[in-house]
């Protein structure tokens, strides 16, 4: 437990997704194949973005990695250990923020630390520093209802990073935010990630978001999802979305995506945008 917030020690871990597939068996209806077996190795410290048409199984894959859902084929290994249930060592940032409304901002951030039984004094110091990191030090006693969407997601970021997990999973975390707030939070996430060296797996439907943040981008096919394109992005940070290299990559990913969306027409409306 001494390593919980020792940031000098990088605790990033790799994720091995070994032919993970998922069938859903709705009680009244035909089985749904949400995910075709996917093989994907994510290196420690990598920032992976997953893009794909809506309904292609991105959330399903992330939820299996988180341990919320069980794969019906293959398995996920983290540091050689099979994932079968959620663990505080893999943090999750939800699109719906998922803050606890009966707790104030400080208590929300503190939640995971309390479960880890971090002593109170130390806990207070960590919470304080992470609230400062996301610029919410003046809101520590505020109720979560009084916060804007962007502030709520900042609390969620502080809550997940302060327990020093080795992996951070994000399911369209900024999807519900306006464009300006979104790009601010992207920059904040980027600087936290650079400071704390976590392995990040981010689901997004925005090609631009993926290119601003990730050093590896995976494009999935329409349902049942498979990996269609696996691309390493070695543009230096901070990335300039107006640069020629950025534009070229953006166009390449977009064209792959557009094909998939065209295929999924008729059953799933496209939700992929170039913004």
């Amino acid at each position: 437990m001494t390593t919980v917030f020792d940031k000098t020690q990088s605790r990033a871990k790799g994720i091995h997704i070994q032919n993970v597939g998922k069938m859903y068996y709705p009680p009244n209806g035909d089985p749904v194949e949400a995910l075709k077996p996917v093989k994907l190795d994510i290196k420690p410290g990598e920032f992976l973005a997953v893009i794909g048409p809506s309904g292609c199984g991105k959330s399903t894959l992330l939820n299996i990695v988180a341990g919320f859902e069980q794969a019906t084929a293959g398995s996920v290994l983290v540091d050689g250990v099979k994932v079968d249930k959620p663990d505080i060592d893999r943090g999750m940032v939800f699109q719906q923020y998922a803050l606890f409304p009966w707790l104030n901002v400080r208590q929300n951030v503190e939640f995971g630390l309390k479960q880890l039984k971090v002593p109170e004094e130390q806990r207070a110091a960590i919470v304080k520093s992470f609230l400062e990191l996301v610029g919410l030090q003046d809101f520590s006693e505020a109720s979560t209802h009084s916060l804007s969407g962007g502030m709520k997601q900042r609390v969620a970021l502080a809550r997940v990073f302060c327990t020093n997990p080795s992996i951070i999973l994000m399911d369209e975390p900024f999807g519900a935010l306006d464009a300006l707030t979104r790009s601010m939070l992207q920059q904040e996430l980027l600087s936290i990630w650079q400071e704390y060296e976590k392995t990040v797996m981010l689901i997004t439907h925005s090609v631009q978001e993926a290119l601003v943040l990730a050093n590896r981008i995976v494009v999935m096919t329409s349902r049942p999802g498979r990996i269609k394109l696996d691309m390493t992005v070695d543009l230096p940070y901070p990335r300039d979305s107006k640069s020629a290299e950025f534009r070229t990559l953006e166009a390449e990913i977009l064209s792959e995506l557009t094909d998939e969306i065209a295929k999924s027409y008729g059953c799933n409306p496209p939700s992929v945008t170039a913004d």
Partner: protein
Amino acid sequence: MAYLRHRLRGIGPYFIAGLSIIFVWQAVVELLHPSSAILPTPAATAETLWTLTKSGELITDIYASLSRVLSAWLLAAIIAIPLGLLQGTNRRFERVFEPVVELFRPISPLAWIPLAILWFGIGESGKIFVIFIATFFPILLNTVSGVKSIDPVMIRAGRILGCDTSLKLFIKVILPAAMPTILVGLRIAFGTGWAAIIAAELVAARDGLGFLISNGMEILRSDMVLAGMVVIGVLGVLIDSVFRVIGKKVNWGAQ
């Protein structure tokens, strides 16, 4: 000051409603001239209320009824909340328990009076049992719905933030998340329990507001009957408003 004005605005409608009822009541008396044994005037009822207050009788009756409702309600809460939490989280338990509940639920507390007397005699416990029946189901049903309407993402957040046993998840997430709805159930239950005191005190009671009413009927004192009714109505509103204030606080500022 603003707080006081806010409070008054809440009470205002009740004040107007009370005045309107007295007005209509008075108008009926003026127009139809019923004998005072059938419908006494508001003034005569108020006088009776005053007499009952002075003699201490009313306080005794209020105390008797309130403590019965309170005991029954607490007992129901202690039993119904855990059962509701279990039913809301455990499918297998729900499949067995829900039909049982649904079979018992339509049976009015009134129907239990004969059995209550047979089982518990004519003492306090029989009365508490009848009120218990009236308070049990609202608490149970609201607890179940409170648990079931928890956003699944809250549960996931709790689990991935370290609630690695069902017990931790229960205490840290499920219970607080369901609490606003459980409190609604407790409030409604106190109301239905309060309304059931008449039934509970119908048989072999020597005090209580229900007794005041049924006794008033027996000795042909309709002013006492009405006085009892007025007290039940006013106290019911007052108790309910206390619950509402608590309920707002525990709604985690959502509204």
